[in-house]
């Protein structure tokens, strides 16, 4: 139906013209290249484009540049607008020009220097921080730090911490060991501290003994950076100066980065996209196969795009040979989905479930009317519908160049809003019962009331009946599609026995139920009974056909009739249309009621009422739109699709201009 026909296309291209052909193909965006399978006997050498490594390298460089520069870049276009398609447009000529004018490696080298220096500064700053903490703990240390860091010709000093209770034994040990040959320093500390900072000075000759002494008293050595030479307070002052200098340098570098970002980010973005476009093109070549003179590419072209592709390639006619063929049964053919504009917004719903396989039915136009009605019934409030329409139309107008999938969703919500307004008007729900709840809207009441045909709050059973009836319609429609599909594939047994049997059986049961309930005249009863029995007989006779032996055939046939419960469950599932519709109106009514109660509060009541109405209805819209969307979708996926649709296809992914920062426009084919 709407899965377009695709042709298998093999190109044989003379090597001299490969570049031109590939860029023309990429420009049409209608050719998907598939790699030659590895077990193919015509396996040739892997072809790598001579320019591939340069482009790959430059792509890496641009990514580095953007990673570093983008945080410093003040983008004139907001991130939101960017994702909505507000991007600069380039042609390939412009980007090629940029490529030849810009020395990306040199720029990357400069920026790398900045980055490296920045990292050095940051690591030095953190070093300064830790040294400062160390020095502050030694505030009263009376000697130059040189003794601890490097030592003099004979004297060594070591600094460390030991447990507070070890301080006295350690001091005594040191005095007896070193005598006049050394000295002990204990930093002043509070009584409660568990660890004390101490230092030991000694002649180099007894260093061995000193270490043994320290080890006995759990001495934990602290390294002093060798740069520290003079007194503690002098060193602290020096550190302070160094920190100021570093901060100044960091600021300068950040300034340079911001300058570079402002100057280069737009260019680098364009180039990054340009290189990734080239890289895609060269990778496509890499999936091809080659002989000495000829490159072979294998892939898919939608038949509708063939004339365009052939036209685009006409200038290369002398160097290519295009062989078209029908896809074979073993081919993994991609699906190219084409739909008329009216159901384009619903295509996203099909995609969410999974694209149809090639040659299968595209369910988009089939589900569109049902989703449209169901959403309206689930939300069912004209006021909410109007707000949805307003909001999404405003968005669509603000961002005119939105990517297709976004546009589809937004259009979908506008359509859903329209359906919601219709259902809401017919059931008399405008922001719940806002019109009836507040006297100031009384002039609208006649208008509102004139549109009502059914109020589900007062008559829920009729609305429930309507919901279930819609369910029956959709289920039978789904079975009908399955019937048609089986006929199309010449699977007559599947058509007449499986789906046909069920259709006859279910229609019979429905008519019978209608007669029994008194909705239909008794004249239809014989017809109803005949249909039911005929359907049951068909199912009994055919549903066990894969089994062997009469008995197991009969039992399987009988058991299959039990499947009627699943149809019953499916139909009952549509009762959610009533429940969600009621929930929306009821939430609206509750909000209005609360606002009305708040309005009775003297002086500030009207402010509270207004806040409650605005905030409450916004909340209600958000919650109920989510619910309406999810549940109408579920009815399509679970109840409807299970009758005829499996999905699981692969979406057609042509070689085209895939970009992340700018958009590259197609060049018209003359």
């Amino acid at each position, binding site marked *: 139906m709407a899965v377009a026909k695709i042709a298998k296309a093999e190109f044989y291209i003379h090597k001299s013209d490969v570049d031109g052909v590939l860029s023309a193909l990429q420009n049409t965006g209608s050719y998907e290249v598939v790699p030659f399978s590895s077990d193919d006997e015509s396996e040739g050498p892997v072809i790598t484009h001579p320019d591939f490594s340069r482009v790959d390298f430059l792509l890496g460089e641009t990514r580095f540049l953007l990673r570093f520069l983008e945080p410093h870049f003040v983008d004139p276009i907001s991130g939101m607008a960017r994702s909505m398609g507000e991007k600069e447009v380039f042609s390939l000529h412009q980007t090629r020009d940029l490529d030849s004018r810009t020395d990306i490696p040199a720029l990357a080298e400069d920026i790398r220097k900045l980055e490296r220096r920045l990292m050095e500064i940051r690591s030095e700053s953190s070093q300064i921080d830790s040294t400062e903490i160390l020095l502050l703990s030694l505030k009263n240390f009376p000697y130059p730090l040189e003794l601890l860091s490097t030592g003099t010709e004979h004297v060594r000093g070591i600094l460390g911490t030991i447990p507070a209770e070890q301080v006295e034994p350690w001091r005594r040990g040191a005095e007896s060991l070193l005598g006049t040959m050394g000295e002990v320093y204990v930093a002043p500390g509070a009584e409660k501290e568990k660890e004390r900072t101490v230092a030991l000075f000694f002649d180099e000759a007894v260093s061995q003994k000193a270490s043994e002494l320290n080890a006995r008293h759990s001495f934990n050595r602290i390294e002093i950076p060798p740069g520290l030479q003079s007194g503690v307070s002098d060193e602290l002052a020096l550190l302070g100066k160094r920190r100021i200098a570093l901060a100044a340098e960091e600021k300068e570098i950040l300034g340079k980065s911001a300058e570079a970002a402002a100057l280069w980010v737009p260019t680098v973005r364009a180039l990054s996209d340009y290189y990734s476009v080239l890289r895609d093109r060269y990778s496509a070549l890499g999936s091809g196969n080659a002989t000495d003179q000829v490159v072979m590419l294998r892939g898919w072209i939608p038949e509708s795009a063939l004339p365009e592709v052939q036209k685009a390639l006409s200038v290369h006619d002398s160097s290519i040979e295009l062989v078209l063929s029908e896809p074979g049964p073993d081919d993994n053919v991609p699906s190219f989905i084409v739909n008329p504009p009216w159901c384009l917004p619903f295509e996203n719903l099909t995609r969410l479930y999974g694209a149809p396989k090639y040659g299968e039915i595209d369910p988009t136009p089939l589900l569109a009317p049902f989703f449209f009605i169901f959403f309206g019934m689930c939300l069912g409030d004209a006021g909410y519908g109007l707000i949805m329409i307003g909001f999404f139309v405003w968005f669509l107008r603000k961002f005119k160049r939105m990517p297709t999938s976004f546009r589809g969703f937004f259009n979908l919500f506008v359509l859903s809003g329209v359906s919601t307004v219709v259902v809401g008007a017919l059931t008399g729900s405008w922001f719940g019962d806002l019109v009836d709840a507040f006297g100031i809207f009384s002039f609208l009441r006649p208008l509102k009331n004139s549109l009502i045909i059914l109020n589900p709050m007062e008559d829920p059973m009729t609305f429930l009946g309507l919901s279930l009836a819609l369910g029956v319609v959709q289920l039978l429609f789904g079975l009908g599609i399955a019937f048609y599909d089986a006929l199309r594939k010449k699977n007559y047994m599947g058509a007449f026995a499986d789906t046909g049997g069920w259709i006859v059986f279910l229609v019979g049961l429905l008519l019978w139920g209608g007669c029994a309930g008194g909705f239909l005249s008794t004249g239809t009863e014989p017809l109803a009974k005949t249909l039911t029995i005929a359907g049951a007989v068909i199912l009994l006779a055919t549903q066990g056909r894969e089994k062997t032996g009469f008995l197991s055939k009969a039992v399987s046939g009988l058991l299959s009739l039990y499947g009627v419960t699943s149809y019953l469950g499916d139909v009952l599932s549509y009762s*959610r249309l*009533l429940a969600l519709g009621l929930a929306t109106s*009821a*939430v609206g009514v509750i909000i209005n009621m609360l606002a009305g109660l708040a309005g009775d509060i003297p002086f500030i009541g009207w402010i509270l009422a207004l806040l409650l109405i605005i905030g409450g209805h916004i909340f209600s819209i958000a919650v109920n739109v*989510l619910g309406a969307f*999810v*549940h109408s979708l579920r009815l399509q996926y679970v109840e409807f699709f299970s009758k005829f649709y499996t999905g699981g296809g692969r979406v057609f992914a042509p070689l085209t201009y895939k970009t992340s920062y700018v958009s590259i426009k197609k060049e018209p084919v003359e």
Partner: protein
Amino acid sequence: MDLLGIALAILGAAMAAGWAGAGSAIGVGIAGESGAGVMTEDPGKFGLVLLLQALPGTQGIYGLLIAFFAILKVGLLGGGAEISVNVWQGLAIFFACLPIAVGGYFSAIAQGKTSAACIQMIAKRPEETGKAVILPAMVETYAVLSLLMSIILLNGIKL
């Protein structure tokens, strides 16, 4: 006016709002824990995670809805005329509130677990959000059915 009748109706309303709300709180909580885990890796998924976390929240709203219906029915809201409710009518209202109280409580927790699992799913495959939203919605079906039954029952009680 029979006070016990009113009291029973209020008990029903309280159970509907309380239990369904408690279930939603647990469900949304379970989904939120999972979501916070995913966002430590990728804070950019906030939108999707929030969407999935919100799904088990509807039971609380359904419960509130039934509670409002119930107390509206016995005239406790809006300062309308006093309605006399006898014990049997009060008991009927209490029973009518039970489907959403019980169904809402348990389905919200189950839905929370499914949402949590689906949040893990979109952490790896963000392109499959559509499917991730549908799985919790399967659970919600039974909350919707409970809601429906409560509405129909309340609607059927003659005062």
